[in-house]
């Protein structure tokens, strides 16, 4: 028999998640300018981490699983940041007038 987690850990995790959902949802009605996006993303990341740690049991599992869990995200960041870099810097050197 493998070890199992206490049920209240799951319940608390879920409550935390629902609270975070409430945060994003309500923040959206306040104008924070560009911070709306930043807050929304921060909350989403927090939610994702909570789910991975407790529901998916990353907490307490081997290091290789930690690596596998972040690898996809890091690679996605590579894809997005380098491509976005192209779009942002287009036009810095005018190719036509």
């Amino acid at each position, binding site marked *: 028999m493998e070890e199992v987690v206490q049920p209240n850990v*799951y319940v608390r995790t879920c409550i935390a998640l629902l609270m975070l959902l409430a945060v994003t949802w309500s923040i*959206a009605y306040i104008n924070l300018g560009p911070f709306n996006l930043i807050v929304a993303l921060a909350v989403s990341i927090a939610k*994702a981490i909570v*789910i991975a740690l407790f529901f998916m049991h990353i907490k307490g599992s081997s290091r290789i699983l930690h690596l596998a869990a972040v690898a996809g995200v890091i*690679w996605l960041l590579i894809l997005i940041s380098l491509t976005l870099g192209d779009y942002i810097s287009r036009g810095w050197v005018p190719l036509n007038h």
Partner: protein
Amino acid sequence: MSISISPASEPFVGEQFDDIEQQRDAAKLGMWIFLATEVLFFGGLFLGYTIYRFTYGHVFVAASRKLDVLIGGTNTAVLLISSLLMAFAVRAAKLDQRRALVGLLAGTALLGCVFMSLKAVEYHKDYVDHLVPRMGFKWEGTDPGNAELFYWIYFAMTGLHAIHVTVGIAIMLVLALLAWLGKFAHGNHNAVEIAGLYWHFVDIVWVFLFPLLYLVGHR
């Protein structure tokens, strides 16, 4: 990943493995690697979203406002709760609680169906509101082309996610059936555990989709 089914009281160990530990570790690692590929599979769409949101920020805000936050938000809650049930299902499987396991898997599937039904209602509403590209799309505001682009990305992302939910529901139903037949008894709960990982992953994707699509800018 190998779904090991055996009625014996000893857990079933594939002939390539030395012991059940190795088998479980392998299955978990395999699933996590698969989830990494899933991140990048969705990643292509996230990239498209990022680039066009960067280029056409204003229209994206306007277009996002037409989506139904109430349905989107409720659906987020539905998925989060379904994840709770799933977590309990895995626990029940490990503790060899057959009845609880069947119930929890069925419950997870049920919430998945609730999600899909709400999604269907929402898609229909979008259709009625002329928000579906190529199907009577109408846009009163500025820049109809880029607004259409937003909805196209919206449907691509939520559509791909919906496909994943549907697959997840099917898996849950099959697992519930197998659990009912007692296939996961005696430590053979590997399949439930990795299916759980999948379900939680689908949940995480939605956690990002909800604010990015429904809450662009403030409302």
